[in-house]
């Protein structure tokens, strides 16, 4: 994103032309802004600062986190909550054990979520947008793919818990296990079996978010000028080549935006895990672990430390968003 320098754009924008007739006393704009800015300060900015402060304190915020160190164990002083948040799930007996336990920890699972959910939602979304573009029932088929976006994660959790249902007594009323049995296989307890369960939950996420990616990518594909595609056809390019060599490069900026948005969304995944497994059976993710520490174990220090780690993970994308915004403003 090689735009004009940030400082230059800021200076330009600050002096942006406002018609002379509309200039007014210095106070008036702030009257319009005050309610919104006050509420955002009270509910976002101030609590964020406070969360960072709490993450250095003990479980009820009364003393430094350093006081919670266990004697004779490694201690990170005031960073003890971070020490806990980063290492408590790991088995540090050997490098191999660290590696294995990482992949069943909340961080490993969140990483799996990010990789697979982003890949599949963007992949399926792009493919479906391309295909639906060629059929007459495009609007209807897109509405159906998009529909899960309108319902709650909780509702989606119930829907899929039923699909994954495992009947221990023999009758399979869950669709997937009934299909397995019909194919002569053993039914699987999808949600409770490590190895299956995180994948099962990610499928729910993909089901919900593909519509989002599909809609944005579809709009981008439609904005590709027809002349360019026609020109490629005239030159004898096949559909497959046109897709990869013409359409994808043109919509690449949109694809990047969709990917970053999906990564941010995935980092914050909470409801699906909370409803379907509660983070048990090795399916925990960062956001659910934070909730567990805060509202089940009532350890404010540890919970806020996990929240701060979550924000730090999101920071690179904030930077990206701002850069994109400034580049957009420069061409407004």
């Amino acid at each position, binding site marked *: 994103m090689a735009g004009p320098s940030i400082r230059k754009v800021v200076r330009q924008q600050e002096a942006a032309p406002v018609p002379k007739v509309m200039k007014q006393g210095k106070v008036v704009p702030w009257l319009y802004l005050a309610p919104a800015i006050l509420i955002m300060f009270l509910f976002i900015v101030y609590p964020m600062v406070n969360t960072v402060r709490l993450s250095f304190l003990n479980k009820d915020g009364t003393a430094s986190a350093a006081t919670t160190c266990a004697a004779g164990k490694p201690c990170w002083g005031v960073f003890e909550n971070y020490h806990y948040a980063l290492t408590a799930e790991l088995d540090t007996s050997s490098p191999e054990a660290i590696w294995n336990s990482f992949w069943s920890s909340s961080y490993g699972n969140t990483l799996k979520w990010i990789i697979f959910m982003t890949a599949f939602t963007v992949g399926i979304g792009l493919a479906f947008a391309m295909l639906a573009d060629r059929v007459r029932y495009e609007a209807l088929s897109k509405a159906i793919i998009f529909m899960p976006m309108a319902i709650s994660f909780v509702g989606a959790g119930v829907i899929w818990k039923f699909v994954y*249902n495992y009947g221990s007594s023999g009758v399979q009323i869950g669709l997937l296990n009934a299909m397995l049995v019909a194919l002569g296989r053993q039914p699987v307890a999808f949600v409770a079996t490590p190895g299956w369960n995180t994948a099962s939950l990610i499928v729910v996420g993909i089901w919900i978010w593909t519509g989002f990616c599909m809609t944005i990518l579809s*709009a981008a594909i439609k904005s590709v000028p027809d002349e360019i595609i026609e020109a490629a056809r005239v030159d004898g390019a096949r559909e497959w080549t046109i897709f990869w060599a013409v359409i994808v490069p043109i919509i690449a900026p949109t694809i990047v935006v969709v990917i970053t948005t999906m990564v941010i969304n995935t980092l914050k995944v909470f409801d699906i895990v909370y409803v379907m497994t509660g983070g048990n059976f090795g399916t925990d993710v960062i956001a659910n672990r934070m909730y567990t520490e805060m509202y089940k174990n009532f350890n404010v220090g540890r919970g806020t430390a996990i929240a701060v780690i979550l924000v730090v993970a999101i920071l690179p994308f904030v930077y990206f968003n701002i850069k994109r915004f400034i580049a957009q403003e420069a061409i407004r």
Partner: protein
Amino acid sequence: MNRENINKQLGRLPTHVLVIFTVLIWILPTFGLLITSLRPRQDINTSGWWTVVSPSPGAQAYSQFCSSCHGSNGSAIAKANLADLALVAKYPRSFTMIAVLNRQFNGKPHMGNVAMPTPQQVADILGYLKQQATGASAPRFTLNNYIDALVGYRGTNTYVADCQAGKQSPDLHCDASDLLNPRGMGRAFLNSLLVTIPATILPILLAAFAGYAFAWLHFNGRFLIFATLVALQVVPLQMTLVPISRFYAQVGLNGTFLGVWLFHTGFGLPYAIYLMRNFLGSLPRDLFESAYLDGASHWTVFWRLVIPLAMPAIASLGIFQFLWVWNDLLVALVFLGGTTPVMTYQISNMVTSLGAGWQLLTAAAFLSMILPMIVFFSLQRYFVRGMLAGAVKG
């Protein structure tokens, strides 16, 4: 249709197959939930929802073992009329029937060449015959699950049946007041509405004010403050929960609607202002200039010009914020909890701790989806527009 045309259609076949296949996969889970929520509890737990249109196990077993001699309605042999309730009532248990099946009739085995049914199949057949003879075949679809979910019924029968028998649990009164039973989805629906409507209007109103200032008024720091808003859009809720719930505990806002409204307003604002400012900024400048030249004040311009013109943006934002708040679990969980349960809370509670049966869970889930679905399908255009304007929220 000439050959070229046919070839063209055939060439597009894979596209149609792929699109329809994907659409089917996407809709099947929700469809299964809807069908299940309409089936009687007994059926839900003994057969998959996809068997709903196939004949019952009893009818299947009857046609396999009995109908060749007794006829499809059971009355083909006059001396053993299976459609006669008096005869069927002689066999209250399956083993008495099995004994008869093993006996000989006129020197020949009862079943002839046909294999003996299993005890389970005999029981199914008896149940089927009894239903046929009394004419009281069990319905395949019922609305009882929805009624039970709405009033928060947790018994082993149905709310309607219990009320008729006068055996309802002490928290139910069998009148309209049961719709407000705190354990039910009826009350939760009301709570969800009470949370969602103000939490949708408030941020849009404040965002319209601020968006107007950012787009058309001049002040120092205009761009820097706005860039900060862009950054705030992606702050996760989790980052502010603890300090705010501690603050609410001090001022007594925990468990109140006001607390939730303010929280959702705070988190809805960055995106709402962003969208509003971009929309208002794209309006033609002459419009504002002529209004000011005519001597209109800022206040008049705002209410008479900005708000009516911003209606498309307000619609987009309204749908977004409405769905966001309606579907939210985390904020409701932390700030309202069980004192004023909303729909998502009620369902998550049924799933995680109460272990409610599928008949209640599916009906409750569908109840919570009705309003978002209506909003979504009727106003999809605005929803998509708001999303394309750059949605990164939460």
